[in-house]
C-alpha cells in the first residue's frame, strides 16, 4: 500500500463527501487535462484496491470507497462539458460534492441544445421566428424577434451573439 496508514485511510473514506473532486485528486482547480490524468494515475497508485488484498476487510472497504470516488472524479474532470458543470456547481457554493455521470452528460447536452435553440418555450419560439425571418432576408423582423427572445431569456449567449452580428450587418 502507498503512503497512508489504515487510520488515515479510514478518515479519508469518512470525509469523502466533504471533498470536491480537485481536493480528492490533489489537483489544482485550473489543472490541464494532462495534469488531471497524472493526478488520477497518482491517486490510483495510492488507492488501488489491488494493492490492499492483504489488509483487513474494513480497510479494504475504505480503499474501495475511495477508489470508486477517485474514478468518478476523474470521469467528470477529464470531460470538458462535465467539468464545466462541476466547476459552476462548486463556485455556486453547492454542498453536494458529487456529480452523477449520466445525469451530468444529459444536462450538458440539454444545455448546449438550449443555448442553441432557447431554454424557454417563448424564447425558442421567437428565436425560431428570427431564424426563419433571416432565411427570407427580413433582417429588421429578425432583430425584433431576437430582442423578444432575449426578454424571455436574458443573457442567452447564442441569442446575443446573433443579435450583435445582425446589428453589425446593418
Amino acid at each position, binding site marked *: 500500500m502507498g503512503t497512508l496508514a489504515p487510520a488515515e485511510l479510514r478518515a479519508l473514506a469518512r470525509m469523502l463527501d466533504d471533498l470536491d473532486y480537485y481536493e480528492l485528486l490533489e489537483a489544482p482547480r485550473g489543472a490541464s487535462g494532462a495534469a488531471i490524468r497524472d493526478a488520477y*494515475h497518482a491517486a490510483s*497508485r495510492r488507492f488501488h484496491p489491488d494493492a490492499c488484498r492483504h489488509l483487513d476487510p474494513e480497510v479494504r472497504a475504505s480503499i474501495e470507497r475511495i477508489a470508486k470516488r477517485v474514478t468518478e472524479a476523474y470521469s467528470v474532470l477529464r470531460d470538458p462539458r462535465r467539468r464545466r458543470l462541476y466547476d459552476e456547481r462548486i463556485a455556486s457554493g453547492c454542498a453536494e460534492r458529487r456529480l452523477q455521470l449520466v445525469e451530468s452528460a444529459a444536462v450538458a447536452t440539454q444545455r448546449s441544445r438550449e443555448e442553441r435553440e432557447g431554454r424557454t418555450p417563448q424564447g425558442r419560439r421567437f428565436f425560431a421566428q428570427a431564424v426563419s425571418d433571416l432565411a427570407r432576408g427580413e433582417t429588421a423582423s429578425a432583430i425584433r424577434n431576437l430582442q423578444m427572445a432575449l426578454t424571455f431569456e436574458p443573457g442567452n449567449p447564442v441569442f446575443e451573439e446573433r443579435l450583435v452580428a445582425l446589428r453589425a450587418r446593418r
Partner: protein
Amino acid sequence: MAEIAIGIDLGTSNSCVAAVESDAPRVLPNAYGEGVTASVVAFGDDGRITVGNAARANVIHAPKTTVYSAKRLIGRYFFSEEVKKARAICSYDIVEGPNHGVRIRIRENDYSLPEISAMILRELKGIAEAQLGQAITKAVVTVPAYFNDNQRQATRDACRIAGLDALRILNEPTAAALAYGFGRELHQKVAVYDLGGGTFDISVLEIGKDVFEVLSTCGDTFLGGDDFDDRLIDLLADEFAAQHGVNPREDPFALEKLKVAAESAKKGLSVDDEVEIRIPDVALDSEGKGLSIGRTLGIGEYATLVNDLIQRTFKVCDEAMQQAGVVNRDLAGVILVGGPTRLPLIRHAVRDYFQLEPRTDVNPDEVVAMGAALHAASLLAPEQKAYLLDVTPLSLKIGVAGGLAETVIERNTPVPIDQTRTFTTFQDFQESVRIRVYQGESRHAAENELLGEFVFGGLARARRGETRIEVTFEINSDGIVHVTARDPATDQKASTQIKLSSGLSEEEIEQIIARGHAERVETALPGTDPSVRPGEAAAAFAARFGGPEDTPAADPPTAPESIGSLAGIGDEVEDVATLDEVAIAGSSEGEAVAAPDASLASLETGEIEVLPDELPDLEEILPLAPHEDPLSASHEPSASGRFEIELDPGDSAPIALDDRELFSAAGGDLGAEPESGEATPADPARKG
C-alpha cells in the same frame, strides 16, 4: 515454497497458461511441449475425459462426443442468436437446461458450459502443477473485453468447479498491454487488436510508467477466426454440392473434414501465397466410390472471401478510437493478439488502418496468458509493480416503463465506480417496483442482455411520480455488479449481487463439484498411463494442427446482425406462469431473484413490453423527468439530485409516444399529460 498464482488465457479455440518465475512470465508447456492447448474436451466411450490436442483429433471420428468452441456458448441464454447458430452447425448436441440455460448432451449426461470450461481449466491447472512442481489454487483468468456480466460470472463459476480461486477475471486486451509494457516505464498510447477464434476486441490504452489505463474498449462477440473458416467451408461445400449433387454439410463427418481443411488452409495462407486443399472421401457416389475435393486457393481469392469480416473489425476500431478520443497519430504501438492476426492479410490491413507497423515482438498466442500471469503475481505480491485501470465495456441499464432501458453507468466508464439514478413510480399507489438490470447499448430493454432482476416492495402509498426510488449500481474492482434500491423517504433498502439468471445456482455448483467430472479429466502428464496419451495418428495430427490457431468453426456467416429476430413462440407460455413466484420470491427483502420470467419470454418473442396484462402493473418504474420551469432563466436540475433524461422530442426514434409518456407521467411539466397510465394505441405490447 512461495505460493504461485497462474495466468490463464481461456480461449475459444486454444488456451494457454503462464506463471511468473523470478520476475519474468513464462508460458508453461503441456506434456507435448506445446505452449497452447486446444480448448477441446472429448468424452471417451470408457468414461474418460481428455482435453487438448488429443481431444481435438477426436472431432473427426467422434463428433457427437467432442466439444469445441464452448466459449461461444458460455453465459448465454438458450434462446440467444449465438446458441441458435451453434446448434445449427455444431456436431455435438446442445440442449436447453433449467432457466433457459444451455447444456451439452453427451450420451445420457447433460453438462453445463461452466463444467466444460472447468475441464479445460483443470487441464491447464495440471500442466502448471507439473511444470511448477507445486499445487496451484489461484489464477487470473482472461475473458474478451466485450464479455458481458453473465459470461464473466459463468467463467468465474468454471474456475470454482475446476478448483481454482479466480483472483480476477481480466480483460484479454488489458492483459496483452500489461505483458507488452510491464516494467518498461513507457509513456505512450497503444491499441490492442485482438482477433481470437470467436471474438474480436479492440482496446485503446494509455500507459503511464506503471499505470495501464484503458481509455476505451469495443468489440464484437460474434466475430472471430471461426467465421473466416466458415467462409471457406461454405465455398468448398457449395462447390462440392454443385459438382456432385451431395451437400457435405448434411454429414457431420464430412463437415468436420471441411472444417479441418479450412482451418489448415488459413494457416497455410499465413505463410504462403497459395495452398492446396485436398480432402479425400468427402462423400460416396451412387456406386459407393469416394468423392473428394481438390483445388488450389490463392491469397487473393481468400481475401475476397473474408474482406468484409476484416472491414467489420475496423468499424469497431473506429468506435473505440472515437470513444477514447484519440486519432492514429496519438498511438505509439499496435499490439496484435490472437491466432488469426498471423495472417499477412490481416497484418497489412491493420497497418493500413492504423498507419503504423504492428508490433512483431509479441507472440499473439501467448501474450494474453503472460499478462494474466504478471497480474496474478502482482495480486499476491506485497508491493504493486503495475496498476490496471480498466473500464466497463457495456452500459449498465435499468428497465423502465414502455419497454425502454435507462443508462445508469455508461460504457467505457472507468471502474471501480458506483452511480445512482433516481426513478419514480408509473402508477398511482404502486406498492413495488421491479428492478431489471440490463447490459447493452440499445434504448429498447429487450435488445439488451438481461442480467437479472429483483422486486423492491413496501413503497409508501402515493400517487404516481411522487415516490422516489434511488437505484445505485456498483461495479467493484473485481468487476462484479451490485445493485441497491433505496427509498429515500423511509431509508428502506434492497440490494442484490447480480447473478446470471440462466446460470448455475449455488447448489448446482456444489453438486457439480461433488460429482467431480472435472476431476475425471485425464491430464496427460509425462509418465502417466500411456493409454491416455494420444496414439501416433493423434500425435501427428497434433503436430500438424498444434499451431496457435483456431479450431473448427461454430457458426456459419449467416446474418449475425439478426440478433433481434423472432424466435418460435412455443416456449413462452410456461414462463409467464412463473412470474408470480418470482414476484413473491423477490419481495422478500434483499433477496436476489433468479429470473425465469416473462421478460425472458418477451426477449424471445422480440416484444418490447415486459409485463403481461393480467398481472398487476405494479412494478413499472420511471426515470424522473427533467424538472423544468418554463419561465425561469436559471436551470439547476442536478443540485436537487434529480436527473435529466436525454430525450429529444424531435428524435426520430420509433418510440416517440413512449417518450412523451415518460415526460408527462413523471414530471408533469412538459406537454399534455394523459390522465392515467393507460397504454397508448401505439403501444401494442401493453395492450397484450
